[in-house]
């Protein structure tokens, strides 16, 4: 016997998992960058700039990771979540 409930539930669960993964990717990467900066503050040369050259002051790897996460969340993940929702609505 097949009911609408039993056939829709796995699809809903899969949709929820997809939404969760896409929405968590950017914040996870940002958090990883920030945790890295906290664990290894000497990697952020801006915190102790004396005697450092141009490139060491410009390129801060933990902040690059955090920035990549923010840009990804805003530019890619957010519109993708909207499209995922639209796709799901159209499929219903």
């Amino acid at each position, binding site marked *: 016997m097949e009911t609408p409930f039993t056939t829709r539930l796995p699809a809903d669960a899969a949709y929820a998992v997809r939404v969760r993964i896409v929405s968590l*990717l950017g914040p996870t990467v940002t958090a990883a960058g920030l945790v890295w900066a906290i664990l290894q503050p000497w990697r952020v040369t801006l915190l102790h700039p004396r005697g450092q050259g141009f490139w060491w002051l410009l390129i801060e790897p933990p902040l690059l990771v955090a920035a990549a996460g923010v840009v*990804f969340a805003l530019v*890619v993940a957010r519109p993708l979540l909207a*499209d*995922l929702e639209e*796709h799901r609505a159209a499929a219903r």
Partner: protein
Amino acid sequence: MQPPAEMVHWLFGVGILFVGLCLLCEAVVGREVWQRRRWRKYLWPGLAFTLGLLLWPVMAFFTNSAIHMYAHGSWAEVLMLAGGAELGLVHGRLRSPLWRLTWPLAFVVTGTAFVVHEQNPWLFARSAFLHHLVGWTFIVGASIPLLLAWRPRSAALQASFALVIVAVSVMLFADRDVAPIFGHLSPLAGAPHR
């Protein structure tokens, strides 16, 4: 005014991380949803092509040895080829799925170049270790895009492809010009910067 080599690795790490995240999202939501917006379907192939393009200045300015130039030049070529082929496929200009074989080719060439152009042993310094590790990751990981050429809709293979790319970006971020690896640092490597 040239940045240290480790910084170039970090900058490429950002680009590769972004490509990996895009690939992971595409694997999660499926190609149909991913390609709902026109710009998005060109995003990661375009980024891959651009990274290949940016490897040319690296080849031109980081001329430590001839083998470095050959390695960077060959990466530039295969990354532009694979990125360009993917752009052609998503645009519809290229139709044969065999073009996807450019990715395993790019992985094998990149991995081989990484392993060959690192002339020091694994535990010489962290950069040597990571060059060997990245090289072998690419060589072994080439099996994934190879399988993807035959099973392009497999979400598991797409996710694995993405995770290999993300892992490579983590390795690039871990790179230092002179730093110990597991407590080993050859006295020939020089003094660590910090």
